């Protein structure tokens, strides 16, 4: 029982970080109907950035977020403008899968040239600190990471709800045609929206780098998990992604405790397939009711 609750705590804390990564990905899907296979690579790139800022300049990875987030936003917007915007509309959905995969490979290649393929980890003074609460251990990094993720998710929510830019994005998500008619500049919304989605990778990368050793190829494992999260939550639904992110964290850590880690991945995928069987649009996916 103790181990189970310990697993549960861990699952929630880890899930929060997945939620942040997945929120960016699902946002990108919502705006431009692009499944961004490079999201994991952007997270790893951010982890490397945080690593450099920490080892070179002694900047704390949590503070580094202030630098990496705008940087990732620009890289994301530029990437969209360069590689996704030119795609022809009729098969953009399929081609964008390939383009973002190629982007992931490109990022991986650049990272392996710059940093070699050695596993890196960010070892801050508090990397191995943990708190003891009622007999349960809570790692400091995990707790800070979770709190930062929640804060950023809140910020993202605020941006989407309260700003003009956020309203333009939401209008585009709901109905691209009407949004365009209402004077929303679709090209700009897509570029900025992609940037916004990628910018969530910055903080996730800092946290990821603090939690796990990583190398340029780490994004493959990350992306398979992120895809499951966004599909389970319902493509395009940020709330769904957050809940699904926490769900995947809890399911895999509880399954690892109760059962065996070799089956914990599997149990999650089975849950995903079952959900899709009942609700092909995911837990919180919107039913698109266009003209039939």
């Amino acid at each position, binding site marked *: 029982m103790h181990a189970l609750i310990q697993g549960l705590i861990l699952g929630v804390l880890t899930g929060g970080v997945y939620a942040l990564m997945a929120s960016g990905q699902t946002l990108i899907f919502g705006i431009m109907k692009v499944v961004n296979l490079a999201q994991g690579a952007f997270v790893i790139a951010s982890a490397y950035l945080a690593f450099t800022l920490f080892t070179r300049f002694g900047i704390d990875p949590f503070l580094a977020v202030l630098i990496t987030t705008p940087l990732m936003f620009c890289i994301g917007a530029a990437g969209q403008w360069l590689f996704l915007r030119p795609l022809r509309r*009729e098969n953009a959905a399929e081609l964008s899968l390939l383009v973002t995969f190629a982007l992931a490979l490109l990022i991986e290649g650049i990272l392996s040239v710059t940093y070699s393929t050695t596993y890196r980890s960010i070892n801050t003074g508090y990397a191995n600190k943990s708190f003891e609460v009622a007999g349960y251990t809570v790692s400091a990094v995990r707790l800070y990471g979770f709190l930062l993720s929640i804060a950023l998710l809140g910020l993202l929510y605020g941006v989407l709800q309260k700003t003009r830019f956020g309203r333009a994005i939401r209008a585009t998500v709901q109905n691209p045609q009407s949004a365009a008619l209402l004077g929303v500049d679709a090209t700009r919304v897509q570029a900025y929206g992609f940037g916004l989605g990628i910018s969530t990778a910055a903080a996730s990368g800092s946290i990821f780098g603090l939690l796990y050793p990583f190398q340029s190829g780490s994004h493959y494992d990350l992306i398979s998990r992120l895809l499951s999260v966004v599909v389970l939550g319902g493509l395009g639904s940020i709330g769904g992604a957050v809940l699904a992110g926490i769900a995947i964290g809890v399911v895999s850590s509880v399954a690892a405790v109760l059962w065996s880690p070799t089956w914990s991945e599997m149990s999650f995928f089975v849950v995903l397939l079952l959900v899709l069987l009942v609700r092909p649009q995911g837990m919180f996916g919107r039913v698109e*009711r266009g*003209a*039939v």
Partner: protein
Amino acid sequence: MTALLDVTGMTKRFGHLTAVDACSFSVAEGSITALIGPNGSGKTTVFNLITGYLPTDSGSVAFDGRSIAGADPGGLYRQGLSRTFQQARVFGDLTVQENLVVAAGGSWRSVFGRRMSRSDRIRAAELLEEFKLSHVADLFASELSWGQRKLLEFAAVLMSRPRLVLLDEPTAGVNPLLIQTMASHIRSYNATGVTFLIVEHDMSFVMTVCDQVIVLDRGKTICVGTPEAVQSDPRVLDAYLGD
């Protein structure tokens, strides 16, 4: 005249919105019936419910005396109930000729038959000739103009020799000359026994082509009658001009 299509108490809700509200009407065999109503009155939804593209919440639909509630669109098509779409849904990656052939229906075994059998080709050639599309037969449908696509979709649903054709705004976005062409095709096929149910906004088209009009407002049938009778009905005027 007997009713070929009978709709009784058909209802469809989307969340809190009741798009079709206990709607009832019938379409007489051999008629050209118009389904009109202001924007958002549920005309296209009614089409989707009849043709099985959407499941009904309650009510019944009978085609040729048999209930077809819950039937799938393909099955209805094979029974002789076919439709077109407002957006002229044609298959862009198929040629014009292939768009016709693919709509020919056919038995299970014909799936393994040749891509274009002799009989398919002859039938398609007739229709292409009739709809003056022969010169574009080998173009991809994606290369056609908007009006040509509307014609093609119309021609395609006739491939399977249907008994009832539902046309969703056949004249939307097409030029006046083509509207006349559409009207004459509808009339000539009606003369061969095909029944039409048409959603239309163009009132002069309705007046000249149709012999019965059903008026829908907020998902309800508010009036049924000849074009002349409907035109002078105050309820219709209210519906169009709003409260």
